[in-house]
């Protein structure tokens, strides 16, 4: 518990420093912009064809943005999701620090996190998102990275890696301690326009340790390879 409070305190201190060290831009130079990206909206070939999504939207100016991120999966009316509401601020050429609240849902239960993370472009063009989550019961770490290989200007192959790790077991949320789950995926999209691209792909979802036990207890498998088809669009 003590460390939890320390982390939350540290998060609060870092946030307040970052928020107050800002020069507020004003005037027409820096208009208020909005962006919505449905990065993944896909159906898989698993039983009952689960639908999953991964969306990001933001509103803001050059130096201050408010992000809402949501990803999850829905099958037979049962939905699991991870959502984050974050303040985002550039701290490096290609990196933003992001902090705010996380809200996870499962059919049984919800939980709230304090979240702080980095989002940006790692060397060699890896679009990367790494966050630390904390609440009074658990700590989490989620890493998300992808690369876009352009065969042509329109045909784009995106390998991606997603990794989740937690400090404690939480059966009600289906999270086991240690490395909990990974997703390795390969998606090939065709951009009919920059804003509209259908894709096909394959993904390998793997769970580990206690997480794998929870999945098996519900009749699932610890390792699932799926074929997916979906849409990517933004505006």
């Amino acid at each position, binding site marked *: 518990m003590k460390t939890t409070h320390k982390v939350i305190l540290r998060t609060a201190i870092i946030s307040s420093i970052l928020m107050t060290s800002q020069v507020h*831009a004003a005037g027409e130079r820096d208009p208020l912009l909005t962006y919505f990206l449905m990065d993944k909206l896909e159906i898989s070939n698993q039983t009952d064809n689960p639908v999953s999504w991964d969306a990001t939207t933001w509103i803001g100016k*050059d130096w201050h943005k408010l992000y809402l991120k949501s990803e999850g999966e829905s099958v037979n009316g049962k939905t699991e999701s991870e959502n984050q509401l974050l303040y985002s601020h550039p701290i*490096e*050429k290609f990196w933003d620090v992001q902090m705010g609240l996380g809200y996870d849902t499962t059919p049984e239960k919800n939980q709230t996190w304090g979240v702080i993370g980095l989002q940006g472009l790692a060397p060699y063009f890896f679009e990367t998102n790494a966050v630390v989550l904390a609440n009074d019961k658990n700590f989490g770490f989620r890493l998300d990275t992808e690369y876009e290989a352009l065969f042509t200007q329109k045909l784009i192959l995106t390998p991606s890696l997603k990794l989740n790790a937690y400090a404690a077991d939480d059966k009600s949320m289906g999270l086991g301690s240690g490395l909990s789950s990974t997703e390795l995926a390969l998606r090939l999209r065709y951009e009919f326009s920059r804003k509209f691209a259908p894709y096909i792909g394959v993904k390998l979802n793997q769970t580990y340790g206690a997480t794998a036990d929870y999945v098996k207890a519900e009749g699932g498998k610890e390792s699932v390879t799926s074929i997916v088809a979906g849409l990517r669009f933004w505006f």
Partner: protein
Amino acid sequence: MKMDGMNHSGHDQSAGMKMDGMKTPNYTHALTMEKMAMGQDVSGVDHSKHSHDMSSMKVDLDSIEIPMDMNPTLPQISVPKKEGPQIDMRATGAKYRLDDPGVGLRNNGRKVLTYADLRNLYPTRHEPQPTKELVLHLTGNMERYMWSIDGITFDEAPPLQFNFGERIRITFINDTMMNHPMHLHGVWSELETGDENHIPRKHTVIVQPGAKISYRVTMNARGDWAYHCHMLYHMMGMFRRVQIR
């Protein structure tokens, strides 16, 4: 000065330098020059001058050209600068590239006119020399689509102030990967092409990616003048107020 078989101009001859392998420039790959500029200074070669070879050199007093970098070092006008996430790269080896047709126009089989071909019809050798130099970096972050001059946008920048009648040398260094046509209202931008006797007068001067360019301005119009990049999307960041009093 190292010579790596790159563009060597005749002006260097007049400066008493010896060189071998004189060639016209070969801008084979679209962004070669920019990449060089963004990386280290791969050679000390000056690309400022015309790309004519020695055979086109005339022994004519009117056409004796003084290499731009041979200008005496002028007192520098200091301007505020800022670092931060608004700048994604720096041109560490920026060169004069007046004879570079630019990305997309190189080696296309046609003669492409460049700034190196500009020549004033009237002699300019009696024009006064500049007494001060203003060096400005054109900066930006492509990924974030933020644009600035020396890391500072218009709304944060103090005006550039000049005294009526003074002659200034302005040098731009383009730290970005895009062209920026810089337009100074109210007064002439007199482009240094290396030919002191035929300095052309311009309104807008394009600064190529990773390159530098110099011109002279006589501040002979009192007032507040706009000074900006002519690309609409860059304009509000790359904008300054010029005050001539």
